[in-house]
């Protein structure tokens, strides 16, 4: 049953990531064209609940999606099986989550 769950989680997180990635890429193009500096970007994102929710959801979906895909790759290409692979998958997801949320905090957190 865990396979069906992981399948659902991976497809579900991909559906969340789809529109978020498009908005994220559009945002990068917009920010570059407008010539915004890092300071100007931070000025707009700090304290913004909307950006915190947007990138928080992005990080969460990526932290779910990527480890499941890597787990499949590890099984097929490295013949890695068993509990150790499950723990490695979970560990990789947690690393993505912590690093991602730290980055989100750096962008939206209000400087003391």
């Amino acid at each position: 049953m865990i396979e069906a769950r992981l399948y659902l989680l991976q497809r579900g997180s991909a559906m969340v990531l789809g529109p978020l990635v498009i908005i994220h890429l559009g945002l990068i193009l917009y920010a570059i064209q407008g010539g915004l500096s890092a300071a100007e970007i931070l000025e707009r994102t700090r304290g913004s609940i909307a950006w915190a929710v947007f990138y928080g959801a992005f990080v969460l979906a990526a932290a779910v999606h990527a480890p499941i895909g890597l787990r499949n790759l590890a099984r097929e290409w490295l013949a890695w099986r068993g509990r150790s692979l499950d723990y490695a998958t979970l560990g990789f997801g947690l690393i993505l989550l912590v690093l991602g949320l730290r980055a989100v905090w750096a962008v939206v957190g209000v400087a003391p």
Partner: protein
Amino acid sequence: MNDGTLTVEIWRGKDEGRFETYRVPHRESQTILDVVTWVQRNAEPALAYRFACRVGMCGSCAMTVNGKPRWTCRTHVSKVVSSGVVRIEPLRSLPRIKDLVADLTPFFEKWRTARGRFEPSATRADPMAPISPESPKRKAADAGIECINCAVCYSACDVVAWNPDYVGPAALNRAWTLVNDERDNDRAGLLRAVSEAGGCHACHTHGSCVEHCPVGLNPTEGIAGLKRMTLSALLKGALS
């Protein structure tokens, strides 16, 4: 081939072995199985290969011909010959026994893993179940039941080659026909079986099984159906 002969390279041995080359007379409407039989009768009496019906029903003569898995009794030489050369070896992803004979034990064991057997819901004393041939479920089952168990799809599948746990297209096609059989008594058990590691969710939808199936079945479609059914069962809490 210009002199009326074919150059036929045939695998001799088990895992360790070599290709032996034979010159075989080329005839009209000649099949690959005809070629192998000619070699066995005229050049290499010890050559091991498997066949039974010779008319595309029994599924026992599948081999790899010029790199692709095929049913050799219905494969014409003229359709697969490349520069006058035909290279014949056993099916891939299966243990080898000798020469062109592959061991199909893992193939059929995986059918059992995917619960590819009918679980009756009635006894012989009960009246026959009225199943309309027009019902969508029966049509879905009918689309997959002509499988001849030749293992061509299994051998064609890259996921089978990469992942030894993967039960393969034929076993899942069988499961798909059973899950759509209204007389089957263990739908939940079947959906649990195909949701294990190596079940339907391991399929990458490459479609090699569809491309190579000699009887024109579409196991990929059935596997996609199993994915949908298992997800639906999961969301309803019926998979635990």
